């Protein structure tokens, strides 16, 4: 059974705190993704990594950074959390093949910034 695991289901943080969201996959996938999911806005890509130490910005990278030191782990970092970063965060991974591959998702982390 394939697994993408996010370290927390729920987090409450204060404005200005540095926040780490962790994601681990056990499928040896090259690609990993961080999305945020908001009502009416759907799923928006924050950052993408296609290899260890490699990253690309998604559509909404402002206020976020990422780290991928090991193939199985992809971390999302909020340097200084703000209330507009209150959201559901989803991590995903996929194989890197020439033909199309599906994405596998974690269970999500609901972050509230107060």
């Amino acid at each position, binding site marked *: 059974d394939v697994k993408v695991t996010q370290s927390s289901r729920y987090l409450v943080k204060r404005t200005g705190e540095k926040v780490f969201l962790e994601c681990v996959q056990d499928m040896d996938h090259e690609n990993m*993704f961080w999305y945020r999911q908001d009502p009416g806005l759907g799923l928006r*890509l924050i950052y993408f990594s*296609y290899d260890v130490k490699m990253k690309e910005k998604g559509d909404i990278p402002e206020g976020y950074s990422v780290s991928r030191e090991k193939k199985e782990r992809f971390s999302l970092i909020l340097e200084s959390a703000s209330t507009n970063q209150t959201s559901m965060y989803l991590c995903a991974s996929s194989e890197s093949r020439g033909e199309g591959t599906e994405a596998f998702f974690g269970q999500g982390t609901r972050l509230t910034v107060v």
Partner: protein
Amino acid sequence: AQRVTQPEKLLSVFKGAPVELKCNYSYSGSPELFWYVQYSRQRLQLLLRHISRESIKGFTADLNKGETSFHLKKPFAQEEDSAMYYCAPPGGSASKIIFGSGTRLSIRP
């Protein structure tokens, strides 16, 4: 990155009525497309992919190159179909996956 659009944020139909969730793509080449579903309190998961041409939970999706569409259809909606549905291109070598904005399907009893 390949992109898709889902024009409807919310679709509400009665149980037993036909359902069609719209998805349009705007990239050239031979497109492949996926539909993902998220049921309440469950993780987002793949529902079906066009290349497999299969029916999953009664849903089918046909790629229409002339209309650049990949609409998801089901002839008779069931209450358990209520969920959030996303259309997306597939991943691949060093490829971002940009999802459509999603459609919330609500089935009324």
